[in-house]
């Protein structure tokens, strides 16, 4: 049983996110955003400078992802990025994780408990061929 076959895209953001680089970055991620139910993680660990156009771009990406029933999550924000996100009151709009791995894992974290138990049971029980 396949639970989440859709890929999670992890994209690292550039060191300086200003109007120009934000536009370029948006062009880069546009194909992922326009996919069906996109699952995207932006890694902000390298970001040393983030301005209002960068924040605007993040919000736009999130809005695009939500439009298509997907989600955008942020991972490992640097101190600089965190300060700007906090300053612009946008940190509360995003789900922010310590690492990209945590963020990527979180996409499959909303499974109903019953389904999760079923999965766990399937993993634990040996395959039928071996039992025979």
């Amino acid at each position: 049983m396949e639970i989440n076959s859709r890929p999670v895209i992890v994209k690292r953001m550039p060191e300086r996110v200003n109007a120009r680089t934000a536009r370029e970055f948006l062009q880069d991620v546009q194909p992922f955003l326009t996919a069906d139910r996109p699952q995207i993680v932006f890694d902000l660990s390298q970001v040393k400078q983030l301005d209002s156009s960068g924040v605007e771009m993040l919000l736009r990406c999130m809005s695009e992802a939500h439009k298509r029933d997907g989600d955008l999550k942020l991972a490992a924000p640097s101190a600089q990025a965190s300060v700007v996100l906090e300053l612009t009151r946008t940190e509360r709009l995003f789900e922010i994780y310590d690492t990209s791995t945590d963020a990527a894992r979180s996409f499959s974290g909303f499974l109903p408990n019953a389904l999760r138990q079923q999965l766990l049971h399937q993993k634990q029980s040996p395959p039928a061929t071996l039992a025979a």
Partner: protein
Amino acid sequence: MDIRALVLVNQSTEVLADPLPFSSLPPALLEVAGKTPLERTIERLLRFGIQPITVISDSASPLSAYASDGSGPIYVNSTRELFWRAAESSFNDLIQEGAELVVVLSLGAYAEIDFEKMVQFHLDQHARVTQACTEAKALEVFCISASRRNDAASLFRSQLTKCRSECPLFAHTGYTNQLKDARDLRQFAIDILTLKTETRPAGSEVRPGIWVEQGALVEKGARLVAPAFIGAFAKIRTHAVITRCSSVEHHAQIDCGTVAENSTVLPYCRVGACLDVAHSVVGTATITNLRRDVTVEILDTKLVSYVLATPGNRLMRAAAELVSFLPKQMWQGLFGGRKPQQPDLQAALQQTSPSLGGAAGYETPACDTDAAEKFPSNLAIVRRYGNQ
């Protein structure tokens, strides 16, 4: 008894080495609740009758804003290399003018020392040099007898680190702030506003715990929550909130809807609209966040910018903005992109949802009561709450 004071203001080497300092000025020259620590120290010295006062600064700490008018302190600017030599020379000048005792302070730390007790202690001990100290560490505050020029010279040559002879320590128990970094500066503002210090905020207390200096503009709809300080000619725009010991220094601006919480906005800084400044010290192009212990350079003028220092320049900028406003509006009106038309709600509801249709195989409108029955409600709830 002729007691005079020599106040030394120089930028520490640690601050100079910092690639991104929160301010180009040393903390002693930064306004905190309307006055610099230097001004507060001078006021204190004058209150104890210690005058005249000579203030020496190095090139990294210009005293151009302070003018010597003859009656007040004498301000001397020196180069960084010759700073200690200038201090020694000024000390000798004070003695030649008839001083019997010289109080030497280096800012640095702000300490509310009882100079009367310290001088009395110095005389009782028959000491050449007396140094003030707290429980934790020694302060750079000395009482030097006029007859001990060599001791003074030795002290200045060692940059106040070494005393030639044994130096009794005067225990200071009053308020002290090291003023080393942005955190200390912020703590100093909190202490002044919560009246933990003997020194008080500048301006008048318009409501309990709210001090406003002359010329400050607080627009209708802005909220000031005590304790707070608004400096001279500062502007607090509508729906801004200043709260939790925040201090907005002179000529600073807080734009519409911005919340300043437990923060200091340094002079001539402008904070943009609808922002949330918390636990921070805002400089002209920097924000020091005290929770994260980081100084961030902000080059985006929408977030943080500076207000021009001279009124003429401010007038010119305002005029240029006014002149360019109408043509800009006309241009946008003529050539600006049309606003996307709002889709009809009923039509939108009848449209097939692309994500639902393609992915789940439901060829249904986005809102269809029949389809809703087919669609399991528990799954819809899971989706609504996501992974929380």
